[in-house]
């Protein structure tokens, strides 16, 4: 017990001593920031070979939104005084799931959803993996079903690329 007390006192003494020296040197060894400040969401790690392909969207982390890259959803519900923010978010998520599933393994970019009045525009870049006939069918299918579910006119505005490598921005 006494040993502990002693050690405590000793450590206190040492602490005071250190503080004095610190004040003399006019520097402080205090860490105020949290230990782990690592942001991981939407960021990609460098691979050892440096051959991991990134699109422009992937190459810019989320804090670059509005500076280097734009939003994937364009609507007025997140503005000051906007209405239907929760519904819009859920609907956007549903559209994304539906489109990526319907156009399986075809979308090379993110699904971009733009809302103008009650029109929903779904834009994106796809690879030419399908015959044009099937692609037209899928466009009509997506527009018709989403229009029925969301009770809005839906438009698909797509671009095609020959190869997935066309959309690669850089390799890390």
């Amino acid at each position: 017990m006494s040993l502990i007390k002693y050690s405590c006192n000793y450590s206190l003494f040492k602490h005071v001593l250190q503080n004095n020296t610190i004040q003399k040197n006019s520097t402080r060894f205090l860490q105020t920031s949290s230990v782990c400040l690592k942001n991981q969401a939407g960021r990609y790690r460098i691979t050892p070979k440096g051959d991991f392909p990134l699109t422009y969207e992937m190459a810019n982390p989320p804090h670059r939104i509005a500076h280097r890259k734009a939003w994937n959803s364009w609507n007025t519900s997140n503005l000051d005084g906007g209405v239907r923010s929760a519904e819009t978010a859920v609907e956007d998520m549903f559209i994304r799931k539906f489109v990526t599933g319907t156009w399986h393994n075809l979308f090379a970019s993110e699904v971009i959803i733009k809302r103008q009045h009650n029109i929903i525009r779904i834009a994106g870049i796809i690879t030419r993996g399908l015959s044009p006939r099937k692609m037209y069918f899928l466009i009509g299918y997506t527009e018709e079903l989403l229009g029925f579910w969301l009770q809005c006119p839906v438009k698909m505005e797509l671009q095609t690329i020959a190869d997935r490598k066309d959309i690669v921005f850089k390799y890390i």
Partner: protein
Amino acid sequence: MLKIFRIIERNTIEKTCLCVRYSSTDSSAEKRDEFRVLNIRKPKGRYQERKQPRTLNILPPRSESMPVDQDWGNVWPGPRSFHPATVPLPVRQGYVEKSGAPPSKYANAELVKIPNFLHLTPPVIERQCNALKQFCTPWPKALDTDEKLEKHFPLQITSSDYCFSSPSIRNPLARIVTLRFKLGSLGLNQRAKDKFLRLVGDRYDEESDSVTIVTDRCPLKKQNYDYALYLLTALYHESYNVEEWENLKTEADMEYYDWLKNKSKATIEKLFGKPHGEIENADVYADSVDKLMNEGENTYTLDKYGEAVRKLLNLPTKIEIK
């Protein structure tokens, strides 16, 4: 070169093998009693030709075959996401950290994201405005200033429309109607004005002499507008309406001092022995007493009051004490 030779070699070997196999199968059909040969490398039956990868016949971008003097409004008639094959501009978008050109318009998702105004080029706006002009009427030239407008049309009715992205176009805020007018434009008499001000309360702004009535209790804009006009009518007629109990108003209930109804007037008349209209300088005196009582005692009102009393009683003017 060596590789190519090798491939050719292999192909020839395969082909010969194939021939041999074909022949062998034929012979096997004839001689059923012989043992069949188990072929591990190649499957039995007809050799399946390998499907050639389908080559899509992709046309070159439309923008390359566009004439220089085309009408852009016909190419891009309405709002639409950016499409690189249709837009003949060499636009680029994107941020590149090291020195280098930003990504080009092909396979560039950033250009698709940003709302474009390619359907609203200046010549197109001009053309559409010229077409819209037939639905417009010019502003009457006689009402060219705010003063004239306010003189002839004193009521201001403010309402808002809202546009936003949603399946429904309804916005509850669109129902609010604001009615605003100058109190002087109603032409009320003094008593009615006093009552009107008491009825509207803090909706009256003294600085600009304006009354603001905001109606938002009905669900529709039209109903709120009708209600605002109803309120105006009701206020107007109510302020002219004289209730019986209003005549019971005594001097103690007055909100301001009126010399004509007070004891000061009676005293003056008694002192001079004639009605106040005939007394010299009585109006000046009445005015100064009104001001003294309504505005409160300060140097200015007290001085005025003193002067008025001296004038009324024909006393010499105040001697300046030095």
